Structure formats: C-alpha cells, structure tokens
C-alpha cells in the first residue's frame, strides 16, 4: 500500500477477485459435475427440459445486482481519484518521446525521476509535447494519459518511503518501453533537504550538459550509436556538409542557430525533425548549451568521450543491449 489510493483500489480488487473466483468455481463445478454425472451411458436417455423462467430471471438479476455493487464502488473510487485536494503540492509534467520532464512548483526540474515527500498530497498537471503518453505508477495504482495540447491531472498521496516504478503506459513509439523512471518517496525532512539542494551550480559547460539532457537533445544526438541527429563529438570548428550542398563551419553562431532555428540549415543525410527552440530557451541556457557542444571537441579525443559519454549516454533511455 504505497499510496492512499492503493488501499481502496486493492480492496475493490479483492472483492472482484472473490466474485470472479466464486463464479468461476460455480461454473467449473457445474460443468464438471454435469459432464460426469450425466455422461452418456447405455440405456439412459436425456431428460428434455425446455427451460425455466424463474432461473432465467434469477441469473439475470443476481449478477446484475452484484455488478451494481462493483459499479458503485468503482465509481466512488474513480471520483475520488479524479478530484485532487485543493492544497496538494503541484508538479508540472511534460511527456516527450521518450522521457518525462517534471518541474516542482518550487522550481526544481527533474528528468525521469520525481522526488516527493511521504504523506503529502501531490497533484500532477500534465501535458505532452508530441504523442499521447500515459503516466503510470503501479505501486500507487494511478494512471492518466498525457495528451498533447491540453492538460490532464492526477493526484496521489504516498504513504511509504521508497523508490517506485514510473512507466509510460500508452504506446508512444520506438522507445516506449524506455520511457520509464522512478518516483522517490522521501521523509519530509529528507525532502526538504533535497529541495534546498538549490539550483545547480557548476561550470557553464556542465550546466549545458544537464540542459542537453533536460531538453532531450541526447535522444537524437547520441554519442554511442547513430541517432536521428548528427553526432556532436568533435563537431566544433569542423566543416559541415548541408543538405542543399553548401558547406559551413561549425562555429558558435552555427550551433546557436541550429538550436534556435533548427530548420535553417539541415545537415546532409538527416531529416528536419528537430524542434525549433526559439522563445523556449533562455539566453543563459543557450550559452550553456553552446559551451557544452564546444567542450565536446576541446578535450583530448580519448577523454572527451568517456566521462561525458557515460552520463549523457546513460540518460539516453535505451538500456544497452
């Protein structure tokens, strides 16, 4: 029972299981008994029975009555689950192929991971950037589709600390099964400590590396295998062959333009699928990203890859085969 919903959900579930077992046992027993007791024997004929109105009414009304109980219980619980309490802590969720981006009301950003305090109502306000996803935490017994262009909400109240699975339950493309993460339920004081971890500090390039993951750049611009976007290692300062035949040098301006207005110069051999980040990214963030991309080329070849790769590559969702 990791959430307040889970108890009622399981209670309802057990009720349904009991009814199902009883009914299944009844039917199986009847079939088995009739099939053996009335199996074909020499000299005994079947007794013709047309039917019985009383029985028909009985096995129409009784199941209906039991099912109305299920309906009532399910509807009550559902109503409860769809009505978030007013004072719940709010977390904004954006689903995106194939990651979860979460932002606390206090401003903390998280990726594929959500830290929440125990025994506190949490309300998620969710939307998607591309296709329909579904935010599913099995341990909390909650699930809600995340739909582009509108908000859906869900809420839960964790009752036990621990780490729980977060799944995407609505098929969303190639790495649907990689769109997973975890919900970390912490004691109140641990949570406060985590919150006050404060904004990330570090060098510009390090911040850029974090942004590179946050914005999901690393899903396409991969370092380990050929992704849907060009590999950025060693890119800076090199000439780039464009689709329209031109060649440009990968300087700061080029990198900046490729982020802000990604459709302007398409690298030969790639599809124009990168989103336009204009007005969605601050100047500081841009600077950090450019610094990071530069850093991918500056370090000596041998090292440049490995440390960066590890962290950036690990985020890229596909558990390596």
């Amino acid at each position, binding site marked *: 029972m990791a959430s307040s919903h889970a108890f009622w*959900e399981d209670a*309802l*579930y057990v009720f349904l299981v009991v*009814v*199902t077992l009883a009914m*299944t046992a009844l*039917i199986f027993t009847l*079939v088995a008994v*009739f099939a053996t007791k*009335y*199996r*074909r*024997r*020499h000299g005994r004929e*079947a*007794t013709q*029975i*047309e*039917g*019985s109105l009383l*029985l*028909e009414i009985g*096995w*129409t009304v009784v*199941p*209906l009555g039991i099912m*109305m109980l299920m*309906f009532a219980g*399910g*509807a*009550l619980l*559902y*109503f409860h689950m769809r009505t978030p309490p007013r004072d719940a802590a709010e977390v904004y969720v954006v689903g995106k192929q194939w990651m979860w981006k979460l932002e606390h009301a206090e401003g903390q950003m998280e990726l594929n991971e959500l830290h929440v305090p125990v025994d506190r109502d949490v309300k998620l306000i969710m939307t998607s950037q*591309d*296709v*329909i996803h*579904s935010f*599913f935490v*099995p*341990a909390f*017994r*909650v*699930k*809600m*589709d995340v*739909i*582009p*262009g*509108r908000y859906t909400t869900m809420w839960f109240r964790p009752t036990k600390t621990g780490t729980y*699975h977060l799944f995407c*339950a*609505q*098929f*969303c493309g*190639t790495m*649907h*099964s*990689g769109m997973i993460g975890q919900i970390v339920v912490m004691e109140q004081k641990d949570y406060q400590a985590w919150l006050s971890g404060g904004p990330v500090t570090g060098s510009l390039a390090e911040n850029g590396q974090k942004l590179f993951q946050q914005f999901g750049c690393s899903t396409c611009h991969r370092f380990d295998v050929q992704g849907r976007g060009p590999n950025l290692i060693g890119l800076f300062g090199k000439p780039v062959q464009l689709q329209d035949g031109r060649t440009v040098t990968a300087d700061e301006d080029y990198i900046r333009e490729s982020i802000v207005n990604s459709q302007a110069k398409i690298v030969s051999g790639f599809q124009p699928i990168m989103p336009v980040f204009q007005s969605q990214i601050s100047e500081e963030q841009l600077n950090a990203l450019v610094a990071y991309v530069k850093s991918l080329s500056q370090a000596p070849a041998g090292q440049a890859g490995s440390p960066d790769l590890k962290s950036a590559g690990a985020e890229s969702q596909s*558990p390596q*085969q």
Partner: protein
Amino acid sequence: MATAAVSTERKNYLNAEYGIRSWLFTTDHKRIAILYLFSITLFFFIGGFAALLIRLELLTPGGDLLTADAYNKAFTTHGQIMVFFFLIPSIPAVLGNFLIPMMVGAKDLAFPRINLISWYIYIAAGILYIHCLVTGGVDTGWTFYPTFSTQFSNTKVIEAGLAIFISGFSSILTGLNFVVTIHRMRAPGLTWSRLPLFVWSHYATSIIMLLGTPVIAITLVLVVLERALNLGIFDPTRGGDPVLFQHLFWFYSHPAVYIMILPSMAVISEIVPCFSRKRVFGYDFVAMSSIAIAAIGFVVWAHHMFVAGISLYSAMVFSFLSFLVAVPSAVKVFNWTATMYKGSVSFNTPMMYAFGFIGLFTIGGLTGLFLATLGTDVHLHDTYFVIAHFHYVMVGGAIMGYLGGIHFWWPKISGRMYPEAWGRLAALIVFIGFNLTFFPQFILGYLGMPRRYWQYPPEYQVLNVLSTAGATILAVGYLLPLVYLLWSLRYGAPAEDNPWKATGLEWTTSSPPPTFNFDEIPVVTEEAYAYEKMPLPEEVTLER
C-alpha cells in the same frame, strides 16, 4: 465406426467441377467458404508467427532478439492481422458462409456474386497489407492512435490503414448477405422461433458488421487524409482532438469484439445440445441475449478510455452501460451449463472445445468486470491484465469456438471424419497451452507491467518465461489440427450424412452437400434441437 453408406460417385459441391477457375469464379457459398478457410488459415499463421516473435523477445528483460522498432512492428502486425484478417472473418466467413444457407434451407446466400466479391475484397486488402508488411510494416499498434499514427510514426501507416479500410467492405458485404438471407431465404415453416441459435447469433453479428464497420472505415480515411495532407483534425496543436479519434475508433472496435465472440457463441450453442442429446435450455433467452449483446455492445465503447481524458461524468455513464452488457453474456453461459443437466453427455472433440470455451470465456468475461469497474480500470488499463483478458475472450473464446466448429462440421465440409483421438489430444493441448500462456499475464498486469513493452524490469521475467513456455505448447496445439485435418482429407473415414445424429437442416443433406444443398427444398415442421426424436450416434452408445 459405422461404414458410410454414401456412394462415392455422388455429385457434391467438391467434385461438381474441377480446375482453378471453378474455384476462383464460383458463386457457391460452400466453395467460397473453403476459399476463406484457406486464406484465413494463412493469415492465422502469419499473425501467429508475429506472436511467436513477441513471446521470444519477452523471454528476457532486455531487447535481445529484435530491435525496438522490429518489436513494435511485430505486435502491430500480430494485432492487425489477427483482428482484421483472422478473427473478424473467421467463423462468419467460413462456417457462417458454409452453414447459414443450409441451416435456413436455402440453395445459396441471397447475393452469391456479392459473396464472391467480398472474398476478393478481403484478398485485395490482405495482399495490400502483406505488401505493407514486406516493404516496411507499421508500428502504431493495431489501434492507430493519433498523434503518433498521424504525425510521428515513420512507418507505412497509410498503406495499413487503407488495407484495413478495404477489408471493412468485405465484412460489410458479408453481413449484408447474411441479414438478407436470414430474412428472405428461410425454408417454408422455418419461423424465427425455430431458427437454430447459430443463425440468431450470426444475425446479431451481421447487424454489428453493418452498423459499426462504416464508422471505422471513415475514421481510418480521416487518419489517412490527416497523415497525407496534414489537416489537423486529430492534432491538438492545431485545434483538433486526438481523443475524438478514440471515440470513433472504439465505437466500432468495441462492438468488433462481439463480431468475434458472437459467432463463437453460435457454434457452442449448436455443439452443447448435440453432445448432451438435449434441447438447449432457455432457447428464447439465448437467442435474445445475442441481440442484446449486439445492441448494448454499441454503447459501452468509452470503457477503453477511462484514463484517456474523457470527462468524469462520461466515464460513469459508460462504466454503468458496460456492466449491462455483461448480463446477456452471463445468461448464455448459465444456459449452456444448464443444457447439460440431466443430459447424456459425450466427450467428442467438439464438446471438448465447448468445455474449453465455457471455462475460458467465463474467466475472460469476469475479468472484463475489472476493466468496466472505474476504480480498478485506472490501475489495470494498458497493462498485461488487459492483454490477458481479451486473449481469454478472443483466443480462449473465439478460437476455441472456431476449432470446435471446424471439427463439428468437418464431416459435412469435407465428407471425411477427423481422427477422434488426435482431436481430443489437440483440444487438451490447446487448453493447457492457452492457460499457461495467458494466466500469468493477469498477474503481470496487476503487478504493473505495461503492454507493448519491448523491454521490462527484471522482476517480471519469471511470469514472462511461463507465458512464453505456454505459447510454445499452444503453437503445437494449433499445428496439430492443421496436420490431422489435412491428413483426414485423404485417409479419414468417409462421413455419414449425419455422423453426430444432430438436428438442423444442414445434417439432412448429404456429406459433402450437393451444389444446391438440397435436392428438394425442405419443409420445417418443428422447433430446433428436437433431440428427443434423434437416435444416439452409434459409436458412443457402446461406452460402459
């Protein structure tokens, strides 16, 4: 085994004409049924192969066998082929086509040429789908949900959508033919209350085909147009609503479940009385429950959308209506069970499948209640629980009924008896394999494993291994009938006209029947299932 007294020289629909043209241009409903039998069997094994790939991939938590894209295409192919190219045409187009004219005492369906056209439409759709498959396939899942299908998938959505669009017309025309035949072609004296329950169920199925299929047809057209012309009808960033697609899709696709299961119930309603030597218990209720399922089945669709962002109020309405549709299904199960009471039950292969059907459909139906109940559906939706539930209905239900029916009418279709011992063995293997495959999936679902996952957390592995093991057993169970039924065509004992001593007009003609079914149009003077007047079949009377 009684020696068949049938003269081998007698003209029947199989030896009336020879040559490929006599098959491809036939308008004989029985020959068209055979054409369907071959084509859907082909599709069954293509879809089954995809299922095998899925189960093998899921043997391990990592993505070891297939790439993610290949896996996504595999389950999409499995779903689309099994639903649109196997289950929906299976019993109606094979057994329905073969039997309905005979059961109503007619020489053919009302529109024999349209019947042939509908097979060609099916084949055209099938070829287009296979072309789509070999040139790249499609990865949207069988449900085609936008905005993935309309904007983000890089696969052949348009081609697959068109293939399914085309196959819909085959379904519509088949339904049209059945409805008109049942209304207009009944033999003298065959009133509605004397119709076999097989015909009643197919009548209900046909109504769904007629009134549901056009909606998915137009919905797929909209998806194709949206994808090709970038219209924005289902794109929320341009004012459209992706949930509208789900409404339109499930308006057909939920009733489509009843297109699959009602014909199977039709078969069971014939088999159980025959092997219990008894009139069916509560004929009127079984007949009317088919119609009730067809009607109520249309107003429950949004139970597929309880967490898809529909309104609270709407979810409650649809949950309530979903419970109503469970009642007629329960009525049927109770009546079949009661039919055996004080009967004279024998354990021939068709009856084995009927037992299997009743058991598995009971579980499948009852687990449906978990998904109709709003509170539990939130957790179980889109998990393996749903997969297990609908496989219990569509495989445990529909395919059990289909195999039972094929065995039951095999003597009539082929004029040969299948080997009984092999038949029982296969039925047993299918039952065991099926339960081993799908029962663990109920637990997986409750534990939270989402559907359509290429990789999964390692704690789910044990149950997945069980499921894959079951699937291999199931595969053997499905291959066995293919082998011994083909064997029986040549080596099986010649069948009598009525080997089961069953009631029904189809058993009054010869096996296999002549081209126009009856030498003389029969006149019906009594109700269906008058088993008190039938003698016992010879073979089984000697037991004990």
